[in-house]
C-alpha cells in the first residue's frame, strides 16, 4: 500500500516539523530559576504526529486521484449537503427547527454565550457582504474592514456629537460606507488580482491610521466611549435585556442579508458580477459596463459592513482604531474563502466555524491559535473550494429538457 518513496518523504516532512517546532515545543526557558528545560518527549510526539499525518494525507490524495470522478463537478459532500438542504421535504421542518433554536438561544444560554453568538452573527453579515465583492465579483479586497470602521465611527461620532440615535444612524452608516466603497472603487477600477489586493489593503490601513492620528476628529487611539446602546421604543433596558435585544437585532439583520444577497445573486447584476469574475474581457465584449458593475459590487458590499459597524459600536459602546486592523479584514476574508466563495450557506457556516471555534478552543489556552491555524490549513488542503462549493441555479424547462 505504501511504497518506500512515500515513507521516505513523510520522514522528511516529520524531520522538518521537528526542526521548525523545536524552539517552540522543546526548549523552555524558565526565567525565574534561569534554567533551560528540554522537553524531548514533545519532540517525539511532533515527529510521530507529523509523520502519521503526512502518510495519511499522501494516502488520501492518491486515493482521490485514482477515484474516477469528474474533478470539475461539485462532487460528493458538497452536493449531498446541498441537496439535503434544498430538498423541499426537509426544507420547512429544518427552517422551523433553526428558527426555534435561534429564538430560544438567548433564553436558554447565558448572556456571555448570547454575546458570542451575536458576534458570530455579525461576522455572518460581514462575510456575506465581502462575499459580494470577493466571491461574486472576484475582486480581492483586503481592506474591507475600512467600511466596518466607517460604520462604527459614523455612529460613534454622530451619537456623541449630535446625539443621533441608533436607528437614525443605521441607514446613514450604511450610506456612508457605500460612498466609501465607491471612493475606493474608482482608483482601483483598472487594477486586478495582486495589485487590487495591495491597494485595497493600503486603503484599509490608511483609513485606520487617519482615525488613529486625527485626534480632533476621532480622539485618536483612545477612541470614543460611552456610545449609546440601541434604543427600544424609548424604554430603558438592563444590560442583560440589551444583550438579548442586540442578539435579536442581529438575527433579523442576518435574515434580511441572506434574503437580499440571495436575490442579488440571482439577478441581472449578480450574473454580471460572476461574468466579471470569470473573464472581464469577454464580459465587456458582451455589453457589460465594467465600471458600473465593479462600483456596484464595492458599494453594495460596503453597505453591509457599514451597518454591522454601527451595530458593533452600539454593542460595545466603545470603539477605537485597534478594532479595525488588517487582521479583521483577514478574518472576514477567511470566512468567505473557508466557507466557499460565492456560496451563501458556505459563508454562514464559515462565519460560525471561524468565530465560534476560537472561542470554544479556549480550553487549549496558549495553543488555541495554533490549533485554529492547523484546522484552517488542513481545511484548505483538503477542500480548497471551501466547505460548500458554489453551485449555480438550475433552470427547468417544462417538457423540454430531458
Amino acid at each position, binding site marked *: 500500500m505504501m511504497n518506500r518513496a512515500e515513507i521516505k518523504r513523510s520522514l522528511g516532512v516529520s524531520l522538518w516539523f521537528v526542526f521548525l517546532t523545536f524552539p517552540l515545543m522543546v526548549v523552555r526557558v524558565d526565567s525565574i530559576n534561569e534554567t533551560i528545560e528540554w522537553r524531548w518527549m514533545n519532540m517525539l510526539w511532533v515527529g510521530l504526529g507529523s509523520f502519521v499525518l503526512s502518510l495519511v494525507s499522501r494516502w488520501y490524495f492518491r486515493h482521490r486521484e485514482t477515484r474516477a470522478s469528474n474533478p470539475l463537478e461539485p462532487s460528493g459532500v458538497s452536493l449531498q449537503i446541498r441537496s439535503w438542504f434544498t430538498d423541499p421535504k426537509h426544507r420547512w421542518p429544518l427552517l422551523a427547527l433553526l428558527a426555534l433554536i435561534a429564538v430560544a438561544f438567548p433564553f436558554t444560554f447565558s448572556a456571555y454565550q448570547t454575546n458570542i453568538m451575536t458576534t458570530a452573527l455579525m461576522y455572518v453579515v460581514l462575510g456575506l457582504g465581502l462575499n459580494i465583492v470577493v466571491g461574486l465579483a472576484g475582486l480581492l479586497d483586503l481592506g474591507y474592514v475600512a467600511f466596518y470602521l466607517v460604520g462604527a465611527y459614523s455612529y460613534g461620532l454622530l451619537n456623541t456629537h449630535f446625539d443621533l440615535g441608533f436607528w437614525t444612524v443605521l441607514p446613514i452608516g450604511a450610506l456612508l460606507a457605500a460612498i466609501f466603497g465607491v471612493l475606493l472603487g474608482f482608483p482601483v477600477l483598472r487594477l486586478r488580482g495582486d495589485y487590487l489586493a495591495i491597494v485595497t489593503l493600503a486603503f484599509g490601513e490608511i483609513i485606520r491610521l487617519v482615525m488613529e492620528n486625527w485626534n480632533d476628529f476621532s480622539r485618536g487611539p483612545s477612541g470614543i466611549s460611552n456610545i449609546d446602546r440601541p434604543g427600544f421604543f424609548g424604554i430603558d433596558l438592563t444590560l442583560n435585556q440589551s444583550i438579548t435585544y442586540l442578539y435579536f437585532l442581529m438575527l433579523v439583520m442576518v435574515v434580511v442579508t441572506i434574503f437580499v444577497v440571495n436575490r442579488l445573486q440571482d*439577478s441581472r447584476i449578480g450574473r454580471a458580477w460572476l461574468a466579471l469574475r470569470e473573464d472581464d474581457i469577454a464580459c465587456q*465584449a*458582451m455589453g457589460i459596463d465594467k465600471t458600473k458593475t465593479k462600483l456596484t459590487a464595492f458599494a453594495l458590499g460596503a453597505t453591509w459592513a457599514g451597518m454591522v459597524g454601527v451595530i458593533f459600536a452600539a454593542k460595545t459602546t466603545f470603539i477605537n482604531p485597534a478594532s479595525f486592523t488588517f487582521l479583521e479584514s483577514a478574518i472576514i476574508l477567511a470566512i468567505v474563502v473557508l466557507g466557499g466563495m460565492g456560496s451563501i450557506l458556505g459563508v454562514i457556516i464559515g462565519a460560525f466555524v471561524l468565530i465560534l471555534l476560537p472561542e470554544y478552543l479556549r480550553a487549549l489556552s496558549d495553543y488555541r491559535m495554533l490549533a485554529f491555524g492547523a484546522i484552517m490549513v488542513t481545511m484548505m488542503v483538503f477542500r480548497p473550494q471551501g466547505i460548500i462549493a458554489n453551485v449555480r441555479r438550475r*433552470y427547468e424547462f417544462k417538457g423540454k*429538457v430531458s
Partner: protein
Amino acid sequence: MPQSAQAILEVKDLSMAFGGIQALDNLDLDVHGGEIVALIGPNGAGKTTFFNCVTGLYKPTGGDVLLTPPGRKTSRLNGLKPNVIAKKGMARTFQNIRLFQNMTVLENVMIGRHCRTRAFVFGAIFRPPQTRREEQDIVDRSYAILEKVGLAHVVNDFSKNLSYGQQRRLEIARALATEPSLLLLDEPAAGMNPQETHELEQLIQRIRDEGHAVLLIEHDMKLVMSLSDRVYVMDYGKRIAAGSPEEVSADPAVIKAYLGESDDA
C-alpha cells in the same frame, strides 16, 4: 456587385501599431446587410487585431470605424468602450474561447442579454412584476437561442464541461443574445471535426438568413469558399485582395502570399 444599401460596417484606413510592429496598415473593409464576408490571411496577418480594434478592445492608432445598424444612424466607433459597441449592435466570438467557465450554459447566454435589459439593484432586491417579466424574457430568449445552436440539452451544465465544438457554438449563442446587426466570428471552425464544421456552416447560413450580417475569420478554405459572399485577404496588416471567393482564389498575389505557402489551404 449591386451595393445599393448603406454598409453596416465601414472601415477606412484602419491602422494599429504595437511599438514597431504595424499590425494593421491602412486597412479598408466593409460589410453590407445580409452578407457573409470572410477575412483570411496567414498566421500573424493581423486578423484578430482587426477584430480587437473594431470591437473596442484595442484603440486603433488611425482610421475610422463606422457602424450603421439597419434603420439607424451611423456612429463612429473609434475610442468607444467594448460594451458600448456591443450595445450599438456588433458582437463577436473569440479565437481562444473566452466563456464564463463557472457559469452554466444558459447563464452564459443570459449574460448576452445584459445590454438589452435594465433591472438594477432595486429590481434585483424587490423583484417588481416588470423585473420578473424581464427575467422570464431573458430566460426564454436565451433558451430559444440555445435550441437554435443545438445546445438545449446541456443548459444547466457548467460551460467548462462542454466539448470544444460545443464551446464554440456557445460563444456564438452568447454573441447572438446581444441582438447584433453584425456578428464577428474569429475562427469558429477551429478544432471542429468535419461533421461539426458542416453543422456550423448551416448554422452560420441560418444566422445570416435571420438578418445578422456575418464577418468571419477562418483558416478552413473549404468553409470560406462555400459560405462567403465576399472575401478579404490580408497579409502583414495590409489588404492584398478582395472580391468573390473565385476572384480571390485566382489572384496571383493571394496565391503567392497565402495559398502558395500554406499546405492546408
